[in-house]
C-alpha cells in the first residue's frame, strides 16, 4: 500500500511542528540536545504518525508496537512526539529538565507513560529491543519493535553484541534505524572513531539493510513498509541525516549537539520552519 501525496504532506507538516516544539522547549529550558533531536525528527514522525500501532490512552496496551530511543539524548524529540500523539498535555513540555518533572534530561520510563524504557547511557537500547522482540515471538504476537540508534552510538561494543543476538534469533519483528548524522560531541564521527561502512557492517552481521535519505519522508515510510515484509532476519534502516536539520542556524554544526538555541536563533529558526509550514 503506497503512501498518498496527502499523507506525505500531512507527515511533513507534522515533522515541522515537531521541530518547532523541540526548539521552543530547548530554548526555554536552556539545556539539552538540539542537533540529534532535529536530525531524527522525520524518522520519529514516520514511526509515530504513519507506522506504529499504539493507544496514548492505554500506554501499556498489549497490542502496541514498541519504540526504544536508544540514543536517549534525543529526549526532546521523544517528548514532543509523545505530547503530539496525545500521551500527555502539550503544556507539560515546558517542564523539561526541571525538578519534579516527568520530562527528565534523558527518558525515564518509571515516570513518563509512553517511554518503554529509560535510556541515556548509549549502546543499551538495541538489547532491550531484542528482548521485547523475543517476548512477542514467545507470545506469537504480531507486535513490532522499533529502535532508534545514533551513528556515534555504534562505537559501543554492546550494539554489536545485540546485532548478533537479533540475527541469531531471527528477529524479523524488529526494525532498527540509525540516525546517521555524522557528528558526535567531540566532532565528526569519522574523525573521533570511524564507524563506516555502516551498511556493510550490519549486512555482515546478518541483517537486511536499507539505506535512505533520512529527511525524505516518502523514502522513510517506504523503507518502514518494506521492513515489515522481510522475514527471517531483522532490518536496519540506515538514515542519512543532517545534524540540526530544520534551520541553517544549527545544520551540520557540531556545537549544537548539546547546546540550545539563543532567543535570536530560535526566532530565525521559527521563521524558516513556519514559512515551510505555510507552503
Amino acid at each position, binding site marked *: 500500500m503506497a503512501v498518498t501525496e496527502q499523507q506525505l504532506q500531512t507527515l511533513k507538516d507534522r515533522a515541522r511542528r515537531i521541530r518547532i516544539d523541540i526548539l521552543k522547549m530547548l530554548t526555554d529550558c536552556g539545556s539539552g540536545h538540539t542537533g540529534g533531536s532535529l536530525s531524527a525528527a522525520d524518522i520519529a514522525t514516520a514511526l509515530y504518525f504513519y507506522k506504529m500501532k499504539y493507544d496514548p490512552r492505554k500506554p501499556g496496551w*498489549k497490542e502496541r508496537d*514498541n519504540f526504544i530511543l536508544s540514543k536517549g539524548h534525543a529526549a526532546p524529540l521523544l517528548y514532543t512526539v509523545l505530547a503530539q500523539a496525545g500521551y500527555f498535555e502539550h503544556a507539560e513540555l515546558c517542564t523539561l529538565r526541571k525538578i519534579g518533572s516527568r520530562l527528565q534530561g534523558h527518558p*525515564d*520510563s*518509571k515516570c513518563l507513560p509512553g517511554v*518503554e*524504557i*529509560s*535510556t*541515556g*547511557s548509549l549502546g*543499551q*537500547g*538495541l*538489547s*532491550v*529491543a*531484542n*528482548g*521485547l*522482540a*523475543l*517476548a*512477542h515471538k*514467545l*507470545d506469537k504476537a504480531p507486535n513490532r519493535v522499533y529502535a532508534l540508534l545514533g551513528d556515534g552510538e555504534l562505537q559501543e*561494543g*554492546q550494539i554489536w*553484541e*545485540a546485532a*548478533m*543476538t537479533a540475527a*541469531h*534469533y531471527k528477529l524479523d519483528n524488529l526494525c532498527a534505524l540509525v540516525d546517521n548524522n555524522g557528528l558526535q560531541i567531540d566532532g565528526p564521527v569519522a574523525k573521533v572513531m570511524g564507524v563506516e561502512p555502516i551498511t556493510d557492517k550490519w549486512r555482515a552481521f546478518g541483517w537486511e539493510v536499507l539505506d535512505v535519505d533520512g529527511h525524505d519522508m516518502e523514502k522513510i515510510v517506504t523503507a518502514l513498509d518494506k521492513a515489515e515484509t522481510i522475514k527471517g532476519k531483522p532490518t536496519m534502516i540506515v538514515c542519512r541525516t543532517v545534524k540540526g536539520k530544520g534551520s541553517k542556524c544549527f545544520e551540520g554544526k557540531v556545537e549544537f549537539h548539546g547546546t540550545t538555541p539563543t532567543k535570536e536563533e530560535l526566532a530565525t529558526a521559527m521563521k524558516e520552519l513556519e514559512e515551510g509550514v505555510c507552503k
Partner: protein
Amino acid sequence: MFHGGNVSKIATRDAYGDALVSLGKKRNDVVVLDADLSGSTKTAKFAKAFPDRFFNIGIAEQDMMGTAAGLAIGGKLPFVSTFAVFATGRAWEQVRQSICYPNLNVKIVATHAGVTVGEDGGSHQSVEDIAVMRVIPHMTVIVPADGPETLQAIEAVAEYQGPCYVRAGRNKVPTVCPENYRFRIGKAHVFNEGKHAAIIATGIMVAEALKARDQLKAEGIDAGVINMSTIKPLDRDAVIAAATRCGAIVTAEEHSIIGGLGGAVAEVLAESAPAPLVRIGLKDTFGTSGDGEGLLKHYGLSAGDIAAAVKEAIKKKKS
C-alpha cells in the same frame, strides 16, 4: 552439630537449577538467559526442560542484561545467569541503567561467587559482587546459605516485583537451615541468640559460623549465630537486637570486608547500636588459585578464624 543434625550436601547452584525447573513448570512466563555457562550455572536443566524459553546469548553479558530487561517489559519473568564476577562486574552498568533505573522485574542469579570457585583463580573469584549490587537503588540482594534456602529464595524472588540479585556458589555445602525454616526477603534467621557475642553470617559462611559457635561453647563462650541471607534490605532490627543483647558482633562473608555484609552491618551499628565489630572476609585483596577448602583457611574464613574473631570482639567490649 548443626541444627537438626542434617548433613546432606548440595551446591547452591544445583539447588538453583532445580528451582528453575519447578518454577518453569508452574509459570509459563518464566524465561532464562545465560551467557555460555549454562552447564556450570545449572540453567542447562531449564534449557532441557523448556528449550523455547531458554536463550543462550553467547559470551555477551551486557547484551544479556539488556535482553532480559526487554523480556521483562514484554511481560516475561527473566532469570539471568552467569558467573558472579561477570554478571556484576562486566555488566554492572547495564544492570544499573537497563534494569534497576527503570525498576524492571529481572532476577539475576549468579553462581561461582567467592573464593571457593577455587582453581580458576582470582580472575574468576568474585569478592566484590555483594558490594556493587547493594549500592544500586531498587536492587534486592540475597545470599542463600544452603540448597534448601536457595530453593525458597528463588521462589520468593519470583513472587517479588522488582530487580533481585541472588548469589550462589560452586561447591557442595551442608544444609544448615532447620527443616521448618521459612525464607522471607529481608528477614534474618536467628539460630541462637547468644550471650557474649553474635556472629552474623551469610552464604556458605553460615556453616562455618555454626562450627565456630560449637567450638566456643566448649570454652564457655556463648556466641549467637544469625543467618543474614538478605543483605539488602538488611534486617536492621535483627542487627540492633543482637548488638543490644550481646554487645559484640562478628560478621562473616565469603566476600571483601568492604561494602558487603560487614559494611552493611557496620552502617547499622554505627548509626543505631554502637558495639565492637570484627569483620571476617577478604581483607581488601583478590583471590588466588587453590582448592576451595584450602582457600577459606588461606584467607582467614574458617570456623577457627571466626572463633578467634569472636574472642577479639568480646575483648574489645571489655576494654
